[in-house]
């Protein structure tokens, strides 16, 4: 469960990114975050995994207020959150398998569990057969599937995706959405910032629109609502 109360964020250079946001996302929800560029979407997303701290306000993730936790506790918070980026952020010198296993190794999971979990999630994203490939031997869509596999390999309760289809062609984007839906079906909360009008309007989910640092719209089974 994610809850924000009166969250404000002003960057040191004076830019007001968030101007009073209050929102509640229940466990297992699938939420699109839409809005024009520079409206505060990215800041909104970054608040959830504490890449940015709010200037004021409260952000509760599974009962913990992120505004209060110490820097040293941030790693523990992130073990419960999967993060997917537009640019995949894979390590080019590691194989697909190693890239996914990396997320478990760094939290000191046992080798036996690592093998089991990695093969499970690679199966989920249908890349088991390419476990030994290197990222540059894969298509963009396949690379994004690896990064999704990595984000869910430690069973987080929330997956946050920042324009995961931004770099992909339409067909591939549908594949990615299919995977997100399946992850969501298992009870994982998904928060996805996106500019993809077609996806938002086809796979209908809750839509939160952010404009000028405020929530302009919050609709169950909403529409993209912007001209692209």
């Amino acid at each position, binding site marked *: 469960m994610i809850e924000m109360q009166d969250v404000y964020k002003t960057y040191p250079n004076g830019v007001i990114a968030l101007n009073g946001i209050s929102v509640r996302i229940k466990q297992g929800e699938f939420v699109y975050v839409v809005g024009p560029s520079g409206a505060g979407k990215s800041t909104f997303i970054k608040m959830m*995994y504490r890449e940015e701290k709010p200037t004021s306000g409260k952000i509760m993730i599974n009962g913990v207020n992120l505004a209060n936790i110490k*820097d*040293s506790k*941030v*790693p*523990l*918070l*992130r*073990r419960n959150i999967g*993060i997917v980026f537009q640019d995949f*952020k894979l*390590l080019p*010198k590691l194989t697909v398998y190693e890239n996914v296993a*990396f*997320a478990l*190794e*760094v*939290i*000191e999971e*046992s*080798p036996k569990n690592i093998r089991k979990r990695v093969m499970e999630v690679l199966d989920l994203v249908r890349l088991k057969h390419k476990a030994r490939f290197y990222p540059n031997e894969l298509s963009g869509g396949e690379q994004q599937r690896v990064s999704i596999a*990595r984000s869910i390999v*430690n069973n987080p309760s929330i997956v946050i995706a920042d324009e995961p289809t931004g770099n992909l062609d339409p067909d591939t984007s549908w594949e990615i959405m299919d995977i997100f839906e399946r992850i969501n079906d298992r009870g994982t909360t998904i928060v996805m910032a996106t500019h993809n009008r077609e996806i938002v309007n086809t796979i209908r989910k809750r839509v939160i629109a952010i404009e000028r640092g405020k929530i302009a719209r919050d609709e169950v089974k909403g529409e993209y609502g912007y001209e692209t």
Partner: protein
Amino acid sequence: MKLNTLRRHFRESLKSLGRNGWMTFASISAVTVTLLLVGVFLVIMLNIQHITKQIERDVEIRVHVDLSATEADKDALRAKLEALSGVEKVTYSSKDEELQKLIESFGEDGKSFRLFEQDNPLSDVFIVKAKNPLDTEKIAKQIEPLPSVGKVKYGKGQIEKLFAATKTIRNIGLALIIGLLFTAMFLISNTIKITIFARRREIEIMRLVGATNGFIRWPFFLEGLWLGIFGSVIPIAIVLSAYSYVFDLLYPKLKNTFFQLLPFYPFAWQLAAVLVLLGACIGMWGSMMSVRRFLKV
């Protein structure tokens, strides 16, 4: 920390040495050059110190006993000399022994002194050694007014000059070594900074998936350690083999002089240990300095 994790850190640190081949080479070269300089300097410094110590140790006060002194007077004088504060040892050398030493020191030519064996013009001597060579002058001044004392010789003026010179040499050497070490640390921290910069993506991902800062630091810490240790291998080999060569070359020539070099063992082991330790320390320190900057959450 789990054993598996430690093994992983070891593996990662070694792998990354291979992956960042040229950076590794550059870092190790930096350590090598620095430690080579430090090593050569250390050898010279320690030997100078060794030699000055010996010269200092050879500084002695020769107390010539007045010719009119009786055996009782000599015993009384000896007791007084031994009672002086700061005196380590008092040795007696009769005039016959003195003559014998003189004859020996001239080798073949010494034979002509044999003539004096009948009528020895030398005097009996007490050789006084100070606990601290620097106190020599003070003690000599105290001896002069004692009864039955003829002449007191201690190389007046020479000693002070020698001590001043060795002290200066020591201080300059120390300053140079410290300067070199700082340069090395700076070089290494800079090189590892580049290594880390090349891996900032890896660090970024580690942070995103919830690795603790300690966990992220470890492989870099070890990598720095390896760089330092590998960098010390060549300097140790070069410095020690060069020293062994020079030592063998000079040893026969320096025999019977003040100038005794430090014997090869255990000096070799000590020097190797110092260089490895130095390499390890600057390597780890360098990587710590660099990693810290990248770990602001």
